[in-house]
């Protein structure tokens, strides 16, 4: 199964080589959770702030239960804001 991982702002540095335009296709295991992916890519806790799957916000307490499915997009930002 494959999903897309997108990392933005200072998290861009954690993208593996081969990533383009802040994203990369990744293989995911059956039942692999959002939290497991965050761990697999060694994303520091303090930088994992805004987590979206297919554009929908995943609360911090739900990340371990929310399995990533084939074709989904996981996008993550550090604390940011705008106006």
């Amino acid at each position: 199964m494959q999903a897309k991982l997108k990392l933005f702002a200072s998290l861009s540095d954690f993208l593996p080589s081969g990533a383009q335009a802040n994203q990369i296709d990744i293989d995911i295991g059956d039942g692999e959770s959002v939290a497991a992916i965050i761990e697999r890519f060694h994303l520091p806790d303090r930088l994992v702030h805004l987590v979206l799957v297919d554009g929908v916000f995943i609360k911090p307490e739900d990340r371990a239960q929310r399995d990533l499915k084939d074709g989904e997009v996981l996008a993550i930002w550090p604390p940011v804001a705008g106006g």
Partner: protein
Amino acid sequence: MAWTRKVLRVNLTDGTCTPEDLNMDWAMDYLGSRGLATKYFVEEVDATVDPLAPENKMIMATGPLTGTVASTGGRYTVITKGPLTGAIACSNSGGYFGAEMKFAGWDMIIFEGKSEKPVYLMVENETAQLRDASHLWGTSTWHTEEQIKKENQDPLIRVSSIGKAGESGVLYACIVNDLHRAAGRSGVGTVMGSKNLKAVALRGTRGLSGIHDFPAFMKVTEEKKQILAENAVTGEGLPSFGTQVLMNVINEMGALPTRNHRDVQFEKANDISAEAMAKPRESDGKAQLITNAACFGCTIGCGRISKIDKEHFTVVNKPEYWGASGGLEYEAAWALGAANGVGDLEVLQYANLICNEQGMDPISFGATIGAVMELYEIGVLDDETIGLAAPFGSAEALAELVDMTANGVGFGKEIGLGSKRLCEKYQRPELSMSVKGQEFPAYDSRAIQGMGLTYATSNRGACHLRSYTVSSEVLGIPEKTDPLTTEGKPGLVMAFQDATAAFDASGLCIFTSFAWTLADIQPQIDAACEGDWSLEKLSEVGERIWNMEKVFNLEAGLTKDDDKLPERLTTEPAKEGPAKGLVSGVPEMLPEYYELRGWDTDGKPKAETLGRLGL
């Protein structure tokens, strides 16, 4: 007393400059800046006035914390009746101009009448003089600022001015200070131009005195700065990535209005994002972004300073644009880019430079181009009418049209009237993405429901800065709410509106609210200002300001019909993303909002509401 207690009244018809004492009774009820200046304005100006008539006035005002050591204390506001909207106009700017007004000894400057010839106001502490500006008329804001500094042999003068857009009647002309900071929206620069007032130049050497409880003020401002420094958003996120970091966030959420709100996601969003600005270009190996920048006294520093690619077609023969300059910020990048389907970062920077140079609101300009491109795509406008091909996505058209609009040339004159008048003229009024005639900013109200209500009820026409519920609905500040639901949003919008009005009235920047609440501003105001400034009182000041603005709009002739979104957003569902299938729920939220406000079903404040607020 953090107020200087002095108002400068400038009568442009008579050519007089008269000092007055600040009305301290009003200051106690309206605090300053947006609040106090609007109070002066509604007391002095008939709401039915033609915005471009000499009878309309224009006030530039600071808040009690402007010019102090409080973080972000550099803001000033321009209050007038807006020519784009026919509603109250209230545009806030940073930079250094606001603080300089305080250092010269003035809380606000009221402009009335109309000068026969172009003039600029020169204020040096207590001395104020109207001077001939014939030689500056027809020139840019950049030239004007440089020239005024040169002819006064003082590089420390601070200047706010209009460019060609404000002179030629572009209805969304802005007032630019410190080269790239602007009181941007609703056409405040058009009003300034209508008065033949080219610029306001300030030099203040008095510093600021009279802080009510100075030791307490120093202590509390220091503590609050610490909060900004330690907060991950204001201490790191905003200075490093600026507001532009939102481009990918909002796109990912399916809330990025694209091609005149036909779509909610832009396939080239990443190409025009903060990440793209920081990436070395293929052409010269340099990133567009040079550094961040801060306004007076700001410890956040969200501003962007960039350099355009010298080889880009827009500037290859124009070395005057090769230097470092302000931008891109998120709103401008969205309006010039996604709203038109244009994914060329360099052309966006060029259009933004022209907007700064000639004093034009990039949000309204960009969004109007979105309407022009849609009218072109459906065959209502053609190459002959526009003078060029203008399909969605055309960088060439954007570059050409920004020059034509800023200079009032050809079809640019029609673009300068904004999308509402343009779409009405071509009998497709439904294609103007605006409320009260002012174009939307960068959030689609089908995917961020609170923002729909924000736009519909904003007293100055569609605007994100009256109640930025994106904080809650997207970023989780102060707490996360679901952007796709309408439940609870009327209360959320109202709370944001009132708090924002109080922030604005203080003279501080609303971006502090990513780390501060009103409870952080309150002790700073309380230490700086005489009188009782409790949290309850500040909240009431916010609500009072909101209702005062609303009453002005009603007296100006606006009705419930002006609190409406374009049909596209309430009848055409989002095509993709999390909001796929959804329309904006403004029609169902509006009655609840009116009720919470203490307004009747027509959106008019009830007598008891006005009485409670002392209006």
